[in-house]
């Protein structure tokens, strides 16, 4: 009945489309540079939808004018963090806008363990619910286990 592109995290601007190729990403970067926006690359291991503050990969590339150079940085990030979520953001500094204008997700984690429900008891027996993502703890656990395996 419905096509679902593989049950993936749909947070980015083009997340309902098939993964963008490097050429398509370069086209978007070129558009952002043409508009004078600053590009940055960010990564995280926690795909929780309320996790807005991802880690920055280097500084925002204010002076880079070449889309290919920026794509090089993106691929650098992919190599450094092969199993993290990576996104490219473009920031418009125009007076009155001053906000992020493009959010392009270019890599997802291969295993997406999903989210768990967290229940918090507040006054009386009132329950407050939220979700937490399994990814950060599981990634760290698997990283520790693989290091131990190497030691053996």
């Amino acid at each position, binding site marked *: *009945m*419905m096509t679902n592109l593989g049950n993936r995290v749909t947070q980015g601007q*083009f*997340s*309902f489309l098939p993964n963008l190729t490097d050429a398509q990403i370069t086209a*978007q970067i070129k558009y952002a540079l043409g508009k004078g926006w600053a590009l940055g690359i960010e990564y995280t291991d926690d795909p929780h939808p309320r996790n807005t503050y991802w880690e920055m990969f280097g500084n925002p590339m204010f002076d880079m004018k070449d889309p290919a150079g920026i794509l090089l940085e993106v691929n650098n990030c992919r190599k450094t963090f092969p199993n993290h979520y990576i996104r490219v953001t473009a920031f418009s500094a125009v*007076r009155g806008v001053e906000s992020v204008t493009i959010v392009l997700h270019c890599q997802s984690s291969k295993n997406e363990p999903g989210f768990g429900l967290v229940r918090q008891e507040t006054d009386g027996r009132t329950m407050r619910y939220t979700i937490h993502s399994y990814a950060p703890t599981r990634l760290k656990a698997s990283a520790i286990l693989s290091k131990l395996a190497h030691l053996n």
Partner: protein
Amino acid sequence: MAIWARKNDMILHLHRAGNSTYSRQKNHGMSFRVICKWMRMAGVDHIHAGTVVGKLEGDPMMIRGYYDTLLDTHTSVQLEKGIFFEQDWASLNKCMPVASGGIHAGQMHQLLHYLGDDVVLQFGGGTIGHPDGIQAGAVANRTALEVMIQARNEGRDIWNEGPQILADAAKWCSPLKSRLGDVERYYFQLRIHR
């Protein structure tokens, strides 16, 4: 209300009730542009300002005039858009225009062309009326929007190539495919009835 909304972390959304009073009834001499300016100054965050291709009244230039009144930091005299006075908005908070009323995924190229980036697109009937259900409707709308933005950013001419871009996306997105087929059937039937 605007002060309360700001204090309590809420968005103040002004709905489209009464829009036709300003846009269809021509005898009272009050234009919707006045409401736009007034509401922007009052601190409203969203206001339904017309769709061009949907149910609400308004030709492209007039609607662009409303949107400019809400979004500009400095408006110059543009008689074709109905703007008679120059206005420096002096960092007054912008008001986000909302396009809602009879719009659907098949018109995405027209919507993006007329209304630009700074708009909230609301598809009510356009989502719920999808033949495959509401979730499919939402997927079709979002896919159409994303594919159109991607094409526009790449520099393609979305006004002329729009239908082709949507048709290409419909090849791998079945909700969009049924939506476009449905729209065609609807307009076909409409032509027969007339």
